[in-house]
């Protein structure tokens, strides 16, 4: 009788371990990942408010307090200042080069990701409207 229970226990344990090894994540994972995300958002906030992204000391936040008026939910869209349909990061680069008189970032640079994370975080909850001018 004990052997049977033990065997069942082992089978259950094996089944439990096998099911965890697949695509499951726990609440603890989510909390940890959320912290990772927030750390990048914070990094983005730091970049957004620093005058060091360009060469003239101007910060994104000077014209865009709390990233207002950046309209990330409207991208991709036709951008008059570039003459074609673009994604948000290309407009970030436009701002880095034009009002901030600096150099563009690579589209996958960590700083670019951080800026995008901050901008979208401040705009969370707003419905998507790609293409809206």
């Amino acid at each position, binding site marked *: 009788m004990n052997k049977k229970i033990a065997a069942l226990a082992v089978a259950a344990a094996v089944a439990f371990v096998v099911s965890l090894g697949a695509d499951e994540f726990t609440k603890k994972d989510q909390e940890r990942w959320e912290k990772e995300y927030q750390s990048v958002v914070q990094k983005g906030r730091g970049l957004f408010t620093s005058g060091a992204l360009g060469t003239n000391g101007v910060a994104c936040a000077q014209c865009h307090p709390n990233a207002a008026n950046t309209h990330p939910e409207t991208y991709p869209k*036709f951008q*008059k*200042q*570039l*003459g*074609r*349909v673009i994604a948000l990061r290309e407009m970030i680069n*436009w701002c880095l*080069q*034009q009002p901030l008189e600096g150099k*563009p970032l690579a589209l996958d640079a960590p700083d670019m990701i951080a800026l995008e994370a901050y901008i979208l975080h401040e705009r969370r909850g707003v419905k998507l409207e790609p293409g809206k001018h």
Partner: protein
Amino acid sequence: MKRILFGLVAAAAFVGAAAMAADATAPPLGLPPVPIPADNPQTPEKIALGKKLFEDKRFSATGQVACATCHEAKKAFTDSPLRTSEGIKQGGKALTGTRNAPTVVNAAYFVTQFWDGRSPSLEDQSLHPFVNPVEMGLKDHQPILKIARSDPAYTKAFEQVFGKKGAAITMNEVTQAIAAFERTQVSGDSPFDRYYFKADQKALTDQQKRGFDLFVNKGRCVSCHVVEQNTAVFTDNRFHNIGVGINNVQNDVPALAGEFLKAKATLAEVDVKVLGDKRTSELGRFAISRNFEGLGGFKTSTLRNVAVTSPYMHDGSIKTLRDVVVHYNNGGVTKEGDPVNDFLSSGIRPLGLTDPEIDDLVAFLEALTSPEYASLPSAARTEVK
């Protein structure tokens, strides 16, 4: 069997002809459809009449100057290399105004005509040079109407096109015909168009591709010299002070502007004033809009065929495309370090382009020449004399 074949061939020819007719009305590569006003539709006969009127020298005080004098077909409809256009001769010397003759090519895409946009249409624009003292020098349009109503070379055409003869022929009909002809002078299909709209990677050199990247990014050109996803007219149809000419009259601006406002100001009178006095000419768009915003502002030119339509700017003061790019690179002054005028468009500022980058941008501008003008001399780097 033969009959069927014949029928098929005939049908094919018909389809072919229909297809060609469709191509004939489709805009050139890179351009949108030509705007045609509802009250002035295009017909081949009207266009032919317009061409004749455009080239007729009798419509001037001396019988020597036509529209085609300053807008010569084989010079891409300009009078390159003249800085400012030369009209009738007086005392053996040609009179001249203050402004450079813009090309008629692609002028159909402008919302307003003239450097300061004082004319709302091609039809209206053609009225003015006839009666400007430094252009055709006529006192009024009567001499033109006299010829149009009596010369057999014209009377048949006016009747056929407009159903009008004798006194019923007015400047309305004359200008509508001229405008119809001008609306056929559109050209695209440049190397840039083939590269950008047909994905032909071989159409541009590597240098020109770098130049295009500068055009859109570091050079800041595309906001005014508009390129869009499927077409490129290279103008925003707006007026901007880019620091040409006005820098010389900066201190006089308040007095000039005040004088101008106190003086008479019908459209026809403005036409005479701005071509007659260089200092007044520098007021630019302000002369029309009476708005601070227009001070020293001139209409954004199209850049199509720019390499073969020198010299440049409203006063023809810049001779090569390289000099033009240097002017922009300096932030709106022709000589680096000169003081910038107070009313400079806020889109203009120093660009920080290196010498190789300037050359790249100039090379790109050469890629905007359409095939029909490709054999004309280019003023990209050296002055065309």
